[in-house]
Every structure is written in structure tokens, then in C-alpha cells.
């Protein structure tokens, strides 16, 4: 790990001021940043510790949604009574991620900002990684690419975003609240993480120095029917090969509203509004599920080793939607 200075921010304003200094990085749970520093992939010169900022509450909002402070730990969020009752999809996605120890450390803001990545990004011994060193190439394109993206990738980068929480937040139509020197703004989850294009070194739309202060969720009609399905190489403690966040609002046998987002397949959580729309206004059956899958996977471009993900995603979508529907 490189030598690094450390400052503990006591207010959001102080954090933003320190975060604007050259070489500064916000330090929350540290589960990704310190790991990347150990691998000489991240080389900040100043760590701005934001752990003691007063951003660790989950509060209800007047219109029925909730505001989740950026410093709420992943484990606390999964076990929060309001989340368990109104957003079980989020709770299920959270406990599908990492290990209990890491969930006790990781924050909501840090989870969103963990790097979109692959093995090659993590290995500083390998020269070719456009995300780590812009313009150096992509070792994964012709290398081992079993775990990589099948949707929305570019010739510059085929890495995936590994967060489970973010997939559920995308399905639940969250907004990310950020604050910078220019003030506060909201970014829809669907746009918060970027596709790689020719600038894969940028994972999100966050501007330099901006700090995530909260995530806001609108009221959810999906509390009764949702499922987070994570398919991975091990039974636990592994990133998703494919994951699906599925949620349904069904009245009188007909789907009134649907939410569908995938993880493990792209540079960001993959939510396709057209796939949700095709489920609405009819009973959930094999035909509508197949139509939704077609829309999610339209334009899929698998690599040499990960063509299996296309069929896996199709089956995982079906399983998640059927489980969310239940037997009623």
C-alpha cells in the first residue's frame, strides 16, 4: 500500500472540501478501496474518512418512500424493519452479497462506488487494462472471459459491476443523492453507473469530488411479490455469473407493474424498461416471460467463454419471475 495521508471528516461540507483535493479518495467501509490499494490499483494520496458523517439513518419520506443514508452498513440495511417489510427485494439482494463480515463494514455509498471490474483490472502485473490504464488495451477480450459482460460492453472494456444491492436498487427505481461544491443533485440509478464506451476508467456519472449522501426509494408496489436470484460458481460468497432482481404487482391475476434488472451481465445493473412493459397488462405466463427475456437480452454479444450466460440469464429471468409470482 502506498503512503497516504488521512483526514477524518466531521461534516459533509468538510468532506466535500477535502474530497476536492488532488489525489483524494473518500474512505467508507474500505472493503474495496483498501483492497485495491493493496494491489496498487488504487493509489490515492489522501483518504477522507467519511464513516463518522451523520448519514447512517433510514427515514421515511412524506410520499411513502424512504431515504437511506449513504453510511448505512449493508447488514443494517438488510435488517432494517422498513426494508424487510416494504422492500424485501433489497434485503434479499443485500444478504446475497459478500460475507457477513464485509456486509458489516460496507456502506450503501461505498457499495455503489465499488469498482466495476474483472481479474485483469485487479492484477497490476498485467499491462493491458483500459480501466486501470486508459489506452493500454483489454486483456480480457481475447483472454479468460468466462465471467465477463454479454451486454452493453465495448472493445475497450468487458468488465461487470459486481454489486447485488445495486441490481435491486435499479429494479426498485432508486435515485442516488449526491452533493458537491455546486450543491445537491439526484441521479437515477439507471443512469448512475455508466457503460464503458471508450472511457471505461469512469464507472459512474459522479463528478470528481462529489459525495453520495443518500439513496432514495419511491413507494414500492412490490412488497408482496419479489425475488432476487443469484447464480454463481459457489453456493455462497462469490460474485454472480448472472443475477436477477424480479418484482411483480399482480391484481386480479394480471400484472399491474413489473420490475426486472440483471447483475453480472454488464458494466452496470441491466434494467430494460421495455422488458418490464411487456409483462404488464396480462397474466404472467411462459409467453410473457419469454418476451421479457427477449427484450432484456436483445443485442447480447457473448465473448469466447461466456456464451452460456445468455441461456443462463434466460432461465434465471424465468425462475426469478415465477418465484416472485408465487403459487397464488
Amino acid at each position, binding site marked *: *500500500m*502506498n*503512503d*497516504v*495521508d*488521512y483526514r477524518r471528516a466531521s461534516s459533509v461540507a468538510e468532506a466535500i472540501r477535502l474530497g476536492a483535493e488532488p489525489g483524494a479518495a473518500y*474512505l467508507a*467501509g*474500505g*472493503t474495496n478501496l*483498501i*483492497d485495491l*490499494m*493493496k*494491489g496498487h490499483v488504487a493509489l490515492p494520496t489522501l*483518504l477522507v*474518512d467519511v*464513516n463518522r458523517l451523520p448519514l447512517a439513518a433510514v427515514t421515511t419520506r412524506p410520499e411513502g418512500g424512504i431515504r437511506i443514508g449513504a453510511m448505512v452498513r449493508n*447488514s443494517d440495511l*438488510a*435488517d432494517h424493519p422498513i426494508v*424487510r*417489510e416494504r422492500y*424485501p427485494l433489497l*434485503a*434479499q439482494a443485500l*444478504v*446475497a452479497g*459478500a*460475507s*457477513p*463480515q*464485509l456486509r*458489516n*463494514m460496507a456502506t450503501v455509498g461505498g457499495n455503489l462506488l465499488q469498482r466495476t471490474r474483472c481479474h485483469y483490472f485487479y492484477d497490476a502485473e498485467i499491462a493491458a487494462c483500459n480501466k486501470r490504464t486508459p489506452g493500454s488495451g483489454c486483456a480480457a477480450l481475447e483472454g479468460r472471459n468466462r465471467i465477463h459482460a454479454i451486454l452493453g460492453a465495448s472493445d475497450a472494456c468487458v468488465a461487470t459491476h459486481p454489486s447485488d444491492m445495486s441490481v435491486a436498487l435499479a429494479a426498485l427505481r432508486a435515485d442516488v443523492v449526491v452533493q458537491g461544491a455546486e450543491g445537491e443533485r439526484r441521479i437515477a440509478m439507471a443512469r448512475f453507473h455508466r457503460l464503458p464506451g471508450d472511457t471505461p476508467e469512469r464507472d459512474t456519472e459522479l463528478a470528481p469530488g462529489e459525495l453520495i449522501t443518500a439513496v432514495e426509494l419511491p413507494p414500492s408496489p412490490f412488497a*408482496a*411479490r*419479489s*425475488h*432476487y436470484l*443469484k447464480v454463481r460458481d459457489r*453456493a*455462497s*460468497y462469490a460474485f454472480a455469473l448472472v443475477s436477477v432482481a424480479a418484482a411483480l404487482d399482480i391484481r386480479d391475476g394480471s400484472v399491474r407493474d413489473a420490475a426486472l434488472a440483471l447483475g453480472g451481465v454488464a458494466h452496470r445493473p441491466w434494467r430494460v424498461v421495455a422488458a418490464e412493459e411487456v409483462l404488464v397488462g396480462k397474466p404472467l405466463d411462459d409467453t410473457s416471460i419469454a418476451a421479457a427475456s427477449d427484450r432484456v437480452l436483445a443485442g447480447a454479444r457473448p465473448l469466447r467463454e461466456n456464451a452460456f450466460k445468455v441461456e443462463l440469464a434466460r432461465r434465471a429471468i424465468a425462475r426469478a419471475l415465477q*418465484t*416472485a*409470482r*408465487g*403459487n397464488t
Partner: protein
Amino acid sequence: MSSGKRPRGDSATVDPSISSRCADADRCGVSRRHFLQAAGCAAGGLAPAELPAQPAMRDALPLGARPATTSTSQRIVRLRINGADRELTIEPRVTLLDALREVLALTGTKKGCDRGQCGACTVLVDGRRINACLTLAVMHEGSEITTIEGLGTPDALHPMQAAFLARDAFQCGYCTPGQICSAVALVGELKAQALSAATFDAAPTGAVPRTIAISDAEIRERMSGNLCRCGAYVNIVAAVRAVAEGKA
């Protein structure tokens, strides 16, 4: 972890990639513990507790934890560990794990992968289990840190330590302090009815269950952040379950 000599053949439990550096620890005439320490140093990881007092070995310490450096970024960090206030002079980049092992000589907490993947470094901070390798010591001023040394003593074992002994829940013992710290927190999380992935697996059609039943599946999922290369999982689950059910 015992430092006593084990019978011949015990080195079979050592990772082959490590033992290949020294074909047979017993034949080399070194104790198993010193063999493991040397092998670990070669891998850039482990260092014995005595190191800070031995200038010749100073360079074996992790950067930032070396006792005398020219760095200007060293600072005083005050930690409360196992009920005692400790004052350390360290750089901010020193992890909690290195502070415990290399500065305070609390070597019960183990360094396995040092990258948050194995759980050997699990300690309790304000009662919650975390990986000490992925957090900086300076972040934890004002917190109550509990390591394996603070859970029990040879004369007064913590119930989880006693259960691990009674159920033979280890082989080489290296992951055991982390397993035990993790398991102690697990029992509290189960009592608090904290969710796990296994809870959802056991639930009908995705609903959040109202009560969480203790089961092997729950314990396996909740212990999945602690790896055991010896594969003592069956007995680890039995030990944790016994304590969780109040039968230890």
C-alpha cells in the same frame, strides 16, 4: 493455537505450495510453528510477534508498521482492545490486522489472504464481526475491539472456544481464531433474528420469514466468510450449532 510440537506427519496439513519451499519441516529440524512463520514470510505475509524488537528483521514488517521510519505521516492512534486502552504510533495506512499483530503483538488474530477473502483476521468491533485486514487501525479510534485473546483464556474459555475443542472443530488451527470470533458474532445475529441468504432460501416464494430457525444451512451460510483449508466444516457447524442452541 498451540505452539507445541505435533507428531510427525502433521505437516501434511500444510498447503503443498508452501511446503514445497522446504520439503519436510521435521527433517529440517525446525518446529512446525517456525516453519509456518518462515514460509509465511517468504510469501510476504506472516511475521512473528517478536519482530518489532529485532532490528535485523525490521524490513519483514508491513510498510507503515515498522518501528522507526523517516515517514512524517506517523501519528498517535488510541485504540481500546480487549478492555484495555492502547496507544500506537503508526502511519494511517496500517491496517487493524497489522496493528494488532505487528505493533501490539496480539498474534491470535491471523493473517491469511490479507485481502478480505478468507476470514482468518475476523475480529469484533463494537460487537460486530469484521475483516481486520480491510480496515485501517486509525478508523477505529473510540471503538471497542475484541480479539480472540479477549474472548477467553486457557483457564476460562469462552463457550465457543470450549465448543470448538469439544467437537474437534479444527485441524491445523490457523483459521480457528477467526472462525471463533465470527461464530460468536453469528450467535448474536441469530438471536437478533438477522437475515441471511439461507433464510430466504428456506422461505416460501420470496417472502421475508417472520422467525429464523437455527439450522445447519443457516450456520453454513452465515459462516461462509471463514474458509478452512483443512475442511473441518462439519465439526465447525456442529460446534457453532451447539452454542447457538445453548447445548454447549
